[in-house]
Protein backbone atom coordinates (compact mmCIF):
# COMPACT_ATOMS: atom_id res chain seq x y z
CA UNK A 1 0.00 0.00 0.00
CA UNK A 2 1.38 3.43 -0.95
CA UNK A 3 1.99 6.19 1.59
CA UNK A 4 -0.86 8.23 0.06
CA UNK A 5 -3.25 5.25 0.26
CA UNK A 6 -2.25 4.74 3.92
CA UNK A 7 -3.00 8.40 4.68
CA UNK A 8 -6.42 8.15 3.04
CA UNK A 9 -7.18 4.96 5.00
CA UNK A 10 -6.11 6.62 8.27
CA UNK A 11 -8.36 9.60 7.47
CA UNK A 12 -11.28 7.23 6.89
CA UNK A 13 -10.66 5.46 10.21
CA UNK A 14 -10.43 8.87 11.93
CA UNK A 15 -13.82 9.83 10.47
CA UNK A 16 -15.50 6.56 11.52
CA UNK A 17 -14.19 6.88 15.10
CA UNK A 18 -15.34 10.52 15.10
CA UNK A 19 -18.82 9.48 13.96
CA UNK A 20 -19.09 6.90 16.75
CA UNK A 21 -17.91 9.43 19.36
CA UNK A 22 -20.29 12.11 18.08
CA UNK A 23 -23.22 9.67 18.40
CA UNK A 24 -22.17 8.89 21.98
CA UNK A 25 -21.41 12.48 22.97
CA UNK A 26 -24.50 14.05 21.43
CA UNK A 27 -26.88 11.54 23.03
CA UNK A 28 -25.27 10.99 26.45
CA UNK A 29 -22.44 13.42 27.11
CA UNK A 30 -23.55 16.85 26.00
CA UNK A 31 -26.37 17.22 28.51
CA UNK A 32 -24.05 16.11 31.33
CA UNK A 33 -21.33 18.67 30.56
CA UNK A 34 -23.40 21.72 29.56
CA UNK A 35 -26.67 22.78 31.18
CA UNK A 36 -27.50 25.02 28.20
CA UNK A 37 -27.60 21.92 25.95
CA UNK A 38 -30.24 20.14 28.04
CA UNK A 39 -33.49 20.04 26.10
CA UNK A 40 -31.84 21.66 23.07
CA UNK A 41 -31.72 19.15 20.21
CA UNK A 42 -31.97 21.05 16.91
CA UNK A 43 -28.43 22.44 17.10
CA UNK A 44 -26.79 19.09 17.89
CA UNK A 45 -26.42 17.79 14.29
CA UNK A 46 -24.42 20.97 13.58
CA UNK A 47 -21.74 19.73 15.99
CA UNK A 48 -21.17 16.39 14.22
CA UNK A 49 -18.56 17.62 11.65
CA UNK A 50 -16.66 19.46 14.37
CA UNK A 51 -16.59 16.39 16.65
CA UNK A 52 -15.33 14.29 13.73
CA UNK A 53 -12.46 16.70 13.17
CA UNK A 54 -11.33 17.12 16.79
CA UNK A 55 -12.69 14.05 18.60
CA UNK A 56 -9.56 13.51 20.77
CA UNK A 57 -10.02 17.04 22.16
CA UNK A 58 -13.72 16.34 22.72
CA UNK A 59 -12.94 13.16 24.67
CA UNK A 60 -10.31 14.98 26.76
CA UNK A 61 -12.64 17.87 27.66
CA UNK A 62 -15.52 15.46 28.40
CA UNK A 63 -13.26 13.54 30.78
CA UNK A 64 -12.00 16.77 32.45
CA UNK A 65 -15.53 18.02 33.09
CA UNK A 66 -16.94 14.63 34.15
CA UNK A 67 -14.13 14.15 36.69
CA UNK A 68 -14.55 17.65 38.12
CA UNK A 69 -11.05 18.77 37.12
CA UNK A 70 -12.22 21.84 35.20
CA UNK A 71 -10.37 24.90 36.52
CA UNK A 72 -12.74 27.88 36.33
CA UNK A 73 -9.90 30.39 36.67
CA UNK A 74 -8.29 29.23 33.42
CA UNK A 75 -11.43 30.21 31.50
CA UNK A 76 -10.54 33.82 32.12
CA UNK A 77 -6.86 33.75 31.11
CA UNK A 78 -6.79 34.51 27.38
CA UNK A 79 -3.51 33.73 25.56
CA UNK A 80 -3.02 37.37 24.59
CA UNK A 81 0.75 37.38 24.19
CA UNK A 82 0.63 34.80 21.40
CA UNK A 83 -0.74 37.29 18.85
CA UNK A 84 2.39 39.44 19.01
CA UNK A 85 4.78 36.47 18.87
CA UNK A 86 2.88 34.87 15.98
CA UNK A 87 2.91 38.01 13.87
CA UNK A 88 6.60 38.68 14.54
CA UNK A 89 7.27 35.26 12.99
CA UNK A 90 4.68 35.58 10.19
CA UNK A 91 6.03 39.02 9.23
CA UNK A 92 9.21 37.18 8.20
CA UNK A 93 7.77 33.85 7.02
CA UNK A 94 5.03 35.17 4.69
CA UNK A 95 7.28 37.53 2.64
CA UNK A 96 9.93 34.80 2.54
CA UNK A 97 7.49 32.25 1.07
CA UNK A 98 6.10 34.81 -1.37
CA UNK A 99 9.49 36.05 -2.61
CA UNK A 100 11.00 32.55 -2.82
CA UNK A 101 8.06 31.44 -4.96
CA UNK A 102 8.40 34.46 -7.25
CA UNK A 103 12.15 33.90 -7.56
CA UNK A 104 11.51 30.31 -8.62
CA UNK A 105 9.06 31.38 -11.30
CA UNK A 106 10.04 30.45 -14.84
CA UNK A 107 9.76 32.81 -17.77
CA UNK A 108 7.48 31.24 -20.36
CA UNK A 109 9.22 33.24 -23.11
CA UNK A 110 12.39 31.19 -22.61
CA UNK A 111 10.66 27.87 -23.07
CA UNK A 112 11.07 26.00 -26.33
CA UNK A 113 8.20 26.89 -28.65
CA UNK A 114 5.76 24.05 -29.34
CA UNK A 115 6.43 21.95 -32.43
CA UNK A 116 3.70 20.33 -34.48
CA UNK A 117 4.68 16.70 -34.87
CA UNK A 118 4.21 14.87 -38.11
CA UNK A 119 1.85 11.93 -37.96
CA UNK A 120 3.76 8.65 -38.26
CA UNK A 121 3.74 7.31 -41.83
Amino acid at each position, binding site marked *: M*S*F*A*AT*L*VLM*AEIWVWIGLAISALFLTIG*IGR*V*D*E*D*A*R*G*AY*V*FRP*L*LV*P*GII*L*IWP*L*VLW*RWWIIETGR*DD*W*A*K*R*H*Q*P*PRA*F*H*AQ*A*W*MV*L*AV*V*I*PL*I*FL*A*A*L*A*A*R*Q*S*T*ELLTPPVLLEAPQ
Partner: protein
Amino acid sequence: MSVKYIPVQWNPNKYVYDAVMLAAVAAFLWFFMFVSPDLLAHDRPITGQIRTARAFGACAFFMLTVILCIGPLARLDARFLPLLYNRRHFGVMAFFIALTHAYAILGWYFSFTPIETYEALLSTNTSFDRVRGFPFEILGLFALLCLGVLALTSHDFWMKFLTPPIWKALHFLIYAAYAAVIGHVALGVLQDGHATGLTVAFGLSGALVIALHLAAVMKDRRAGDPAASIAQDGWEVACHADQVEEGFGKVAVLSTGERVAVFRQEGKLSAISNACSHQNGPLGEGRIIDCLVTCPWHGFQYNVTNGRSPEPFTETVPTYDLRIDGAKVLIRSEPNPPGTYVEPVAATPANKDTV
Protein backbone atom coordinates in the same frame (compact mmCIF):
# COMPACT_ATOMS: atom_id res chain seq x y z
CA MET B 1 -25.94 35.34 24.88
CA SER B 2 -27.07 31.82 25.51
CA VAL B 3 -29.96 30.29 27.45
CA LYS B 4 -30.65 27.18 25.36
CA TYR B 5 -28.53 26.61 22.28
CA ILE B 6 -30.08 27.13 18.85
CA PRO B 7 -28.43 26.37 15.47
CA VAL B 8 -27.66 29.98 14.49
CA GLN B 9 -28.22 33.11 16.53
CA TRP B 10 -29.42 35.78 14.14
CA ASN B 11 -30.65 39.26 14.90
CA PRO B 12 -31.41 42.30 12.67
CA ASN B 13 -27.77 43.50 12.83
CA LYS B 14 -26.48 40.08 11.82
CA TYR B 15 -28.98 39.90 8.94
CA VAL B 16 -27.60 43.18 7.58
CA TYR B 17 -24.00 42.03 8.12
CA ASP B 18 -24.61 38.72 6.35
CA ALA B 19 -26.57 40.34 3.50
CA VAL B 20 -23.73 42.79 2.78
CA MET B 21 -21.20 39.94 2.93
CA LEU B 22 -23.22 37.72 0.57
CA ALA B 23 -23.74 40.58 -1.88
CA ALA B 24 -19.99 41.34 -1.90
CA VAL B 25 -19.12 37.65 -2.47
CA ALA B 26 -21.67 37.34 -5.29
CA ALA B 27 -20.36 40.55 -6.92
CA PHE B 28 -16.74 39.31 -6.69
CA LEU B 29 -17.56 35.92 -8.23
CA TRP B 30 -19.70 37.46 -10.97
CA PHE B 31 -16.94 39.95 -11.86
CA PHE B 32 -14.20 37.29 -11.84
CA MET B 33 -16.16 34.73 -13.86
CA PHE B 34 -18.14 36.83 -16.32
CA VAL B 35 -16.64 40.33 -16.61
CA SER B 36 -12.89 39.94 -16.22
CA PRO B 37 -12.36 37.55 -19.20
CA ASP B 38 -13.68 40.14 -21.69
CA LEU B 39 -12.11 43.04 -19.83
CA LEU B 40 -8.63 41.55 -19.64
CA ALA B 41 -8.74 39.83 -23.06
CA HIS B 42 -6.14 37.22 -22.08
CA ASP B 43 -3.90 36.05 -24.91
CA ARG B 44 -4.08 32.55 -23.38
CA PRO B 45 -7.68 32.10 -22.23
CA ILE B 46 -8.50 29.44 -19.66
CA THR B 47 -11.50 27.11 -19.64
CA GLY B 48 -14.67 28.02 -17.78
CA GLN B 49 -14.12 25.27 -15.18
CA ILE B 50 -10.65 26.52 -14.31
CA ARG B 51 -11.89 30.10 -14.14
CA THR B 52 -14.69 29.05 -11.77
CA ALA B 53 -12.21 27.23 -9.53
CA ARG B 54 -9.88 30.25 -9.53
CA ALA B 55 -12.76 32.66 -8.84
CA PHE B 56 -13.73 30.74 -5.70
CA GLY B 57 -10.08 30.35 -4.67
CA ALA B 58 -9.36 34.05 -5.09
CA CYS B 59 -12.59 34.93 -3.28
CA ALA B 60 -11.64 32.71 -0.32
CA PHE B 61 -8.17 34.29 -0.19
CA PHE B 62 -9.49 37.87 -0.16
CA MET B 63 -12.17 36.96 2.40
CA LEU B 64 -9.47 35.49 4.61
CA THR B 65 -7.44 38.68 4.15
CA VAL B 66 -10.38 40.86 5.23
CA ILE B 67 -11.11 38.56 8.20
CA LEU B 68 -7.51 38.86 9.37
CA CYS B 69 -7.58 42.66 8.97
CA ILE B 70 -10.69 43.09 11.15
CA GLY B 71 -8.98 42.15 14.45
CA PRO B 72 -6.07 44.63 14.27
CA LEU B 73 -8.30 47.34 12.76
CA ALA B 74 -10.65 47.05 15.75
CA ARG B 75 -7.68 47.28 18.12
CA LEU B 76 -6.32 50.33 16.29
CA ASP B 77 -9.64 52.16 15.96
CA ALA B 78 -12.85 51.35 17.87
CA ARG B 79 -14.96 52.44 14.88
CA PHE B 80 -14.13 49.08 13.26
CA LEU B 81 -15.63 47.10 16.18
CA PRO B 82 -18.95 46.51 14.35
CA LEU B 83 -17.02 44.45 11.78
CA LEU B 84 -15.81 42.19 14.59
CA TYR B 85 -19.36 41.63 15.82
CA ASN B 86 -20.27 38.92 13.30
CA ARG B 87 -16.83 37.88 12.03
CA ARG B 88 -17.70 34.25 12.76
CA HIS B 89 -20.27 34.13 9.93
CA PHE B 90 -17.62 35.68 7.67
CA GLY B 91 -15.20 32.87 8.56
CA VAL B 92 -17.76 30.10 8.01
CA MET B 93 -18.62 31.58 4.62
CA ALA B 94 -14.92 31.76 3.69
CA PHE B 95 -14.59 28.05 4.51
CA PHE B 96 -17.48 27.09 2.24
CA ILE B 97 -16.09 29.25 -0.58
CA ALA B 98 -12.69 27.53 -0.15
CA LEU B 99 -14.41 24.14 -0.08
CA THR B 100 -16.14 24.95 -3.38
CA HIS B 101 -12.73 25.86 -4.84
CA ALA B 102 -11.31 22.50 -3.71
CA TYR B 103 -14.32 20.63 -5.10
CA ALA B 104 -13.96 22.37 -8.48
CA ILE B 105 -10.22 21.60 -8.60
CA LEU B 106 -10.74 17.93 -7.74
CA GLY B 107 -13.50 17.69 -10.33
CA TRP B 108 -11.34 19.17 -13.08
CA TYR B 109 -7.82 17.86 -12.43
CA PHE B 110 -8.41 14.55 -10.60
CA SER B 111 -11.62 13.13 -12.08
CA PHE B 112 -10.17 10.54 -14.42
CA THR B 113 -7.21 9.22 -12.44
CA PRO B 114 -6.83 5.43 -12.36
CA ILE B 115 -6.44 5.57 -8.55
CA GLU B 116 -8.80 6.98 -5.92
CA THR B 117 -9.21 10.80 -6.13
CA TYR B 118 -7.76 11.70 -2.73
CA GLU B 119 -4.94 9.21 -3.14
CA ALA B 120 -4.15 10.86 -6.47
CA LEU B 121 -4.17 14.30 -4.84
CA LEU B 122 -1.66 13.15 -2.22
CA SER B 123 0.61 11.22 -4.57
CA THR B 124 0.65 13.14 -7.86
CA ASN B 125 3.42 15.51 -6.82
CA THR B 126 5.78 14.68 -3.94
CA SER B 127 8.66 17.05 -4.77
CA PHE B 128 8.86 18.49 -1.26
CA ASP B 129 12.61 19.10 -1.62
CA ARG B 130 12.39 21.99 -4.11
CA VAL B 131 10.74 25.40 -4.39
CA ARG B 132 10.04 25.25 -8.11
CA GLY B 133 7.40 22.57 -8.60
CA PHE B 134 6.66 22.28 -4.85
CA PRO B 135 3.37 20.39 -4.28
CA PHE B 136 1.33 23.51 -3.56
CA GLU B 137 -1.85 21.41 -3.50
CA ILE B 138 -0.85 20.02 -0.11
CA LEU B 139 -0.54 23.55 1.28
CA GLY B 140 -4.06 24.25 0.05
CA LEU B 141 -5.34 21.04 1.60
CA PHE B 142 -3.71 21.93 4.94
CA ALA B 143 -5.25 25.43 4.85
CA LEU B 144 -8.67 23.95 4.01
CA LEU B 145 -8.43 21.56 6.97
CA CYS B 146 -7.53 24.46 9.28
CA LEU B 147 -10.44 26.55 7.97
CA GLY B 148 -12.68 23.50 8.44
CA VAL B 149 -11.68 23.16 12.10
CA LEU B 150 -12.31 26.88 12.61
CA ALA B 151 -15.68 26.95 10.84
CA LEU B 152 -17.01 23.71 12.30
CA THR B 153 -16.10 24.67 15.87
CA SER B 154 -17.54 28.17 15.61
CA HIS B 155 -20.81 27.50 17.46
CA ASP B 156 -21.08 29.06 20.93
CA PHE B 157 -21.27 25.55 22.41
CA TRP B 158 -17.63 24.95 21.44
CA MET B 159 -16.41 28.06 23.20
CA LYS B 160 -18.11 27.11 26.43
CA PHE B 161 -17.19 23.41 26.19
CA LEU B 162 -13.53 23.88 25.24
CA THR B 163 -13.17 27.12 27.33
CA PRO B 164 -12.30 30.41 25.57
CA PRO B 165 -8.49 30.06 25.98
CA ILE B 166 -8.43 26.56 24.40
CA TRP B 167 -10.92 27.62 21.72
CA LYS B 168 -8.78 30.65 20.95
CA ALA B 169 -5.60 28.56 20.86
CA LEU B 170 -7.32 26.22 18.39
CA HIS B 171 -8.41 29.18 16.31
CA PHE B 172 -4.84 30.46 16.10
CA LEU B 173 -4.71 27.88 13.28
CA ILE B 174 -5.95 30.77 11.14
CA TYR B 175 -2.39 32.13 11.13
CA ALA B 176 -0.88 28.85 9.91
CA ALA B 177 -3.70 28.61 7.36
CA TYR B 178 -2.96 32.08 6.00
CA ALA B 179 0.75 31.35 5.63
CA ALA B 180 -0.13 28.07 3.87
CA VAL B 181 -2.58 29.86 1.57
CA ILE B 182 0.11 32.40 0.63
CA GLY B 183 2.38 29.46 -0.24
CA HIS B 184 -0.44 27.67 -2.08
CA VAL B 185 -1.12 30.73 -4.24
CA ALA B 186 2.49 31.84 -4.76
CA LEU B 187 3.71 28.34 -5.65
CA GLY B 188 0.57 27.63 -7.66
CA VAL B 189 -1.24 30.13 -9.82
CA LEU B 190 1.42 32.85 -9.47
CA GLN B 191 4.00 30.59 -11.11
CA ASP B 192 2.35 31.76 -14.31
CA GLY B 193 4.55 34.72 -15.29
CA HIS B 194 1.62 36.41 -17.02
CA ALA B 195 -0.42 36.78 -13.82
CA THR B 196 1.00 40.21 -12.97
CA GLY B 197 -2.26 41.68 -11.69
CA LEU B 198 -2.91 38.71 -9.40
CA THR B 199 0.70 38.79 -8.15
CA VAL B 200 0.40 42.45 -7.14
CA ALA B 201 -3.04 41.93 -5.56
CA PHE B 202 -1.94 38.91 -3.51
CA GLY B 203 1.35 40.56 -2.49
CA LEU B 204 -0.38 43.76 -1.35
CA SER B 205 -2.99 41.74 0.56
CA GLY B 206 -0.33 39.85 2.50
CA ALA B 207 1.60 43.06 3.17
CA LEU B 208 -1.56 44.79 4.44
CA VAL B 209 -2.36 41.97 6.87
CA ILE B 210 1.20 41.95 8.23
CA ALA B 211 1.38 45.76 8.51
CA LEU B 212 -1.94 46.01 10.39
CA HIS B 213 -1.00 43.28 12.86
CA LEU B 214 2.39 44.79 13.55
CA ALA B 215 0.80 48.24 14.00
CA ALA B 216 -1.66 46.73 16.51
CA VAL B 217 1.17 45.00 18.38
CA MET B 218 3.11 48.28 18.57
CA LYS B 219 0.04 50.14 19.79
CA ASP B 220 -0.54 47.54 22.52
CA ARG B 221 3.09 47.85 23.65
CA ARG B 222 3.04 51.64 23.57
CA ALA B 223 -0.34 52.21 25.16
CA GLY B 224 -1.15 48.86 26.74
CA ASP B 225 -2.84 48.28 30.06
CA PRO B 226 -0.71 49.48 33.02
CA ALA B 227 0.70 46.95 35.48
CA ALA B 228 -0.59 47.01 39.05
CA SER B 229 1.98 47.54 41.81
CA ILE B 230 2.15 45.25 44.82
CA ALA B 231 1.04 47.05 48.00
CA GLN B 232 1.01 44.37 50.70
CA ASP B 233 0.39 40.65 51.06
CA GLY B 234 -2.18 39.62 48.48
CA TRP B 235 -3.23 43.17 47.54
CA GLU B 236 -2.14 45.32 44.60
CA VAL B 237 -2.67 48.96 43.60
CA ALA B 238 -4.70 48.85 40.38
CA CYS B 239 -5.17 52.59 39.86
CA HIS B 240 -6.24 55.79 41.58
CA ALA B 241 -9.93 56.20 42.35
CA ASP B 242 -10.17 59.48 40.48
CA GLN B 243 -9.00 57.73 37.28
CA VAL B 244 -12.21 55.68 37.07
CA GLU B 245 -14.93 57.58 35.28
CA GLU B 246 -18.63 57.06 36.06
CA GLY B 247 -20.01 54.28 33.81
CA PHE B 248 -16.60 53.21 32.51
CA GLY B 249 -13.77 50.85 33.48
CA LYS B 250 -10.05 51.10 34.14
CA VAL B 251 -7.92 48.02 33.36
CA ALA B 252 -4.80 46.92 35.25
CA VAL B 253 -2.55 43.89 34.85
CA LEU B 254 -2.06 42.07 38.17
CA SER B 255 1.17 40.35 39.17
CA THR B 256 -0.51 37.02 38.31
CA GLY B 257 -0.75 38.21 34.68
CA GLU B 258 -4.52 38.48 34.85
CA ARG B 259 -6.29 41.66 33.81
CA VAL B 260 -8.79 43.23 36.16
CA ALA B 261 -11.32 45.91 35.21
CA VAL B 262 -12.36 48.45 37.88
CA PHE B 263 -15.74 50.08 37.20
CA ARG B 264 -17.54 53.03 38.76
CA GLN B 265 -21.31 52.77 39.05
CA GLU B 266 -23.33 55.39 40.92
CA GLY B 267 -20.12 56.66 42.48
CA LYS B 268 -19.02 53.28 43.87
CA LEU B 269 -16.24 51.02 42.57
CA SER B 270 -16.42 47.32 41.67
CA ALA B 271 -13.84 45.02 40.06
CA ILE B 272 -14.33 42.04 37.75
CA SER B 273 -12.14 40.03 35.38
CA ASN B 274 -11.39 41.91 32.17
CA ALA B 275 -12.03 38.73 30.13
CA CYS B 276 -15.62 38.16 28.96
CA SER B 277 -16.69 34.56 29.47
CA HIS B 278 -17.88 34.35 25.86
CA GLN B 279 -14.71 35.00 23.82
CA ASN B 280 -12.53 36.72 26.45
CA GLY B 281 -13.37 40.14 24.97
CA PRO B 282 -12.04 43.18 26.89
CA LEU B 283 -14.83 44.06 29.36
CA GLY B 284 -12.82 47.00 30.68
CA GLU B 285 -13.29 48.74 27.34
CA GLY B 286 -17.06 48.39 27.63
CA ARG B 287 -19.57 50.87 29.04
CA ILE B 288 -22.08 50.39 31.82
CA ILE B 289 -25.58 50.51 30.34
CA ASP B 290 -28.60 49.96 32.61
CA CYS B 291 -26.38 48.84 35.51
CA LEU B 292 -24.63 46.25 33.31
CA VAL B 293 -21.24 46.44 31.63
CA THR B 294 -21.50 45.52 27.94
CA CYS B 295 -18.65 43.68 26.20
CA PRO B 296 -17.54 45.75 23.18
CA TRP B 297 -17.03 42.63 21.05
CA HIS B 298 -20.39 40.84 21.05
CA GLY B 299 -22.60 42.69 23.53
CA PHE B 300 -22.54 40.15 26.41
CA GLN B 301 -23.56 41.91 29.64
CA TYR B 302 -22.56 41.51 33.30
CA ASN B 303 -23.53 43.05 36.61
CA VAL B 304 -20.21 44.48 37.85
CA THR B 305 -21.01 43.78 41.51
CA ASN B 306 -21.42 40.00 41.09
CA GLY B 307 -20.06 39.23 37.60
CA ARG B 308 -23.35 37.63 36.52
CA SER B 309 -25.29 38.09 33.29
CA PRO B 310 -28.90 39.19 33.82
CA GLU B 311 -31.53 36.44 34.07
CA PRO B 312 -32.25 34.23 32.16
CA PHE B 313 -28.64 34.21 30.89
CA THR B 314 -26.11 32.10 32.74
CA GLU B 315 -22.67 33.58 31.92
CA THR B 316 -20.46 34.59 34.85
CA VAL B 317 -17.02 36.16 35.32
CA PRO B 318 -14.78 36.25 38.42
CA THR B 319 -15.05 39.25 40.73
CA TYR B 320 -12.29 40.81 42.86
CA ASP B 321 -12.31 42.16 46.41
CA LEU B 322 -11.26 45.78 46.50
CA ARG B 323 -10.70 48.55 49.04
CA ILE B 324 -9.63 52.17 49.06
CA ASP B 325 -6.41 53.37 50.66
CA GLY B 326 -6.39 57.16 50.37
CA ALA B 327 -6.59 57.78 46.66
CA LYS B 328 -5.41 54.28 45.72
CA VAL B 329 -7.67 51.41 44.62
CA LEU B 330 -6.37 48.15 46.06
CA ILE B 331 -7.37 44.82 44.50
CA ARG B 332 -6.90 41.38 46.02
CA SER B 333 -4.65 39.38 43.65
CA GLU B 334 -6.72 36.20 43.89
CA PRO B 335 -10.10 36.38 42.13
CA ASN B 336 -13.36 35.23 43.68
CA PRO B 337 -15.17 32.36 41.93
CA PRO B 338 -17.29 33.59 39.00
CA GLY B 339 -20.58 35.14 40.08
CA THR B 340 -19.50 36.04 43.65
CA TYR B 341 -21.08 39.24 44.97
CA VAL B 342 -18.69 41.91 46.30
CA GLU B 343 -20.02 45.02 48.03
CA PRO B 344 -19.16 48.11 45.91
CA VAL B 345 -16.79 50.57 47.60
CA ALA B 346 -17.43 54.30 47.83
CA ALA B 347 -14.61 56.40 46.35
CA THR B 348 -13.80 59.99 45.43
CA PRO B 349 -15.35 61.05 42.10
CA ALA B 350 -13.38 60.76 38.89
CA ASN B 351 -11.16 63.68 38.01
CA LYS B 352 -11.46 64.28 34.26
CA ASP B 353 -7.87 65.57 34.12
CA THR B 354 -6.40 62.30 35.40
CA VAL B 355 -8.67 59.81 33.60
